[in-house]
């Protein structure tokens, strides 16, 4: 079970809650310090449309080499104090761990060259794909799929990765249904019970691999969960209040990586990051306006307010007039980071944080629950919960209350449709039984389908 339970906030004072600074900063041998005052760009790039198989894998390697060279070259020309590169392996590179491992080697080699020859400091985050899905999945924690994920982590850890992350998917299918129907009980169950149990098991093992190879178990993201809600909300498919509340609930889930020993920086697309930072004190990676290359959002600025790494999420390798997209994203991120760091250097970082916050927080509920003061208010409640389920329910309840308060005191705009859903979500929360056994039994009974089999999670 959980190694650590966070029962206190690592950050209690709003003045200590700012980008670049984290209570538990991480120092690296090359001199980079994440959370030590400087925000670094985290550039994330991927293959353009192409098949990855035996016949094409050498082409894929070549692309990764060129993309890494382009990014390092641009970063060097722009004189960055340090650079993080993230490679989210494509599925075939986890299904064939040797391909993921070779990619890790290739990318790291270029980074080492730039570090040695040009003094460009850099770190490599490797993110295997969580392939534990599909028709032939036997079990979440044993069998072929589990072994592939673990083998990939291990091989990449031994061959150049500095940070390990994953966008894990335990409970995702249930959560998808919850989102489509804005079904709060199902969402709570998928996160507080199913996802939580998977996070414990998964991260216990990732942390072990990282310890054995002496690298950093960085953290997870609710990409498969609250990002689905967020993107659907941005497209007007579901209410933004639902995506906001879902996000806060997801913080409880994502934080389990840290309970198991992950020390940050968590993954860029975890917009729940501010909660992780406030509660655990670990540095976080965030993405916002520059992630428009991957998806739109209503929190392009506020996402930077307490970030320690600043990312573009993921860009496919394509040529635009200004060069290849990975280089272009690098340039954009570098300038954003320069500006934030300049505010820090002149002692005005709190003002910058507040401007980033104020520019977005009024317009959207999801942006609003990322507001540092709101994060601290809610985080304070979350840590009172004794179990992951209880914390998930508290998170939702506190989020509803903060959103309502924000609307009432005029710091958040919500239309009537949104308000209706806020009330609906609130009453759905009320109707979840206090008795956990009863709730779980009821949920298992009504949600066991071919898509969600509790036995694969050793539940029931």
């Amino acid at each position, binding site marked *: 079970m959980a190694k650590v339970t966070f029962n206190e906030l690592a950050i209690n004072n709003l003045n200590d809650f700012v980008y670049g600074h984290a209570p538990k900063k991480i120092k690296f041998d090359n001199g980079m310090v994440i959370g030590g005052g400087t925000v670094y760009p985290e550039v994330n790039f991927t293959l353009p*449309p*192409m098949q*990855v198989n035996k016949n094409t894998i050498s082409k894929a390697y070549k692309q990764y080499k060129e993309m890494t060279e382009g990014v390092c070259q641009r970063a060097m020309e722009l004189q960055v104090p340090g650079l993080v590169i993230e490679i989210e392996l494509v599925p075939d590179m986890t299904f064939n761990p040797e391909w993921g491992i070779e990619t890790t080697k290739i990318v790291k080699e270029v980074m080492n060259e730039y570090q040695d020859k040009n003094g460009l400091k850099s770190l490599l985050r490797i993110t295997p794909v969580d392939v534990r*899905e599909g028709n032939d999945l036997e079990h979440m924690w044993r069998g072929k799929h589990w072994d592939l994920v673990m083998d990939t982590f291990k091989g990449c850890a031994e061959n150049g990765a500095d940070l390990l992350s994953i966008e894990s*998917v335990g409970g995702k299918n249930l959560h998808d249904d919850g989102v489509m129907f804005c079904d709060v009980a199902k969402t709570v169950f998928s996160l507080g019970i199913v996802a939580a149990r998977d996070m414990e098991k998964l991260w216990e093992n990732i942390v072990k691999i990282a310890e054995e190879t002496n690298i950093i178990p960085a953290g997870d993201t609710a990409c498969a969960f609250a990002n689905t809600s967020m993107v*659907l909300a941005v497209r007007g498919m579901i209410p933004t209040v639902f995506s906001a509340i879902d996000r806060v609930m997801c913080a409880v889930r994502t934080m389990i990586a840290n309970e198991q020993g992950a020390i940050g920086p968590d993954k860029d697309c975890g917009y729940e990051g501010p909660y992780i930072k406030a509660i655990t004190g670990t540095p976080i990676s965030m993405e916002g306006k520059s992630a428009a290359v991957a998806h739109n959002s209503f929190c392009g600025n506020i996402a930077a307010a307490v970030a320690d790494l600043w990312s573009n999420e993921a860009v496919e390798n394509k040529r635009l007039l200004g060069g290849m997209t990975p280089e272009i994203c690098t340039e954009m991120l570098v300038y954003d980071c320069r500006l934030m760091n300049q505010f820090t250097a002149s002692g005005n970082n709190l003002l910058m944080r507040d401007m980033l916050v104020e520019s977005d927080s009024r317009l959207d509920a999801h942006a609003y629950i990322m507001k540092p003061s709101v994060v601290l208010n809610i985080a304070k409640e979350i840590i009172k919960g004794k179990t992951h389920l209880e914390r998930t329910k508290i998170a939702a309840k506190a989020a509803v209350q903060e959103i309502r308060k924000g609307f009432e005191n005029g710091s958040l705009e919500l239309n009537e449709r949104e308000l209706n859903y806020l009330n609906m979500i609130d009453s759905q929360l009320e109707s979840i039984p206090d008795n956990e056994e009863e709730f779980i039994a009821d949920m298992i009974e009504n949600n066991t389908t071919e898509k969600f089999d509790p036995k694969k999670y050793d539940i029931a």
Partner: protein
Amino acid sequence: MDREILNELTVALQKGDAIKTQKFVKIALKKGYEPEQILTEGLVSSMNTIAEKFKKKQIFVPDLLLATRAMNAGIFILKPKLKKQLFSPIGKVLIGTIEGDLHDIGKNLVKVFLERAGFEVIDLGNDVPVNYFIEAIKKFKPQILGLSASLTTTMYGMRDVIKALEKEGLRENLLIVVGGVPITESFATGIGADIYDMDGTKVADKAKEKLKCSNF
């Protein structure tokens, strides 16, 4: 006869309340309404209103889904009493996400809209291998095949499916719709698909329109 009960039915359906919808369908039957009238004036017309509102972004997906569920609940009561099968589907669609691809929210939304538009939809789920598609097409004989891919590394799997269909002589009478985040119109045309669209609300319309002009 007062129309009060049909109005109540409409309200219940639009609120997505399946239980009340069933209740009002039963009352209407008792009051002597023809099942056909309850179906068209109570259920179908309200559902059309809901669908219109959704297109105009006046309501959300869950509203649409719950209303659909309520409508289906109402139809469940009516079905045995309808004189003829009013609901013969306007076409049969087979959909699935390409092998190696595990995201299916987008595909699921498209499915909802196709069903709404009167299609019968057979969903093969996600991570579907090429030969599964082939076998399912032989078995179900759909007029439309919907292929979804959300990853740049799996989108070429669509081409593999289309090639396999050609090889098996199954391509000709099939309308192929492809979709997913990374799919562009030129990619769709390039691999020999007929319709490209990512927007669930539009796929159904386009499929209807195309079917009309095709020789199926």
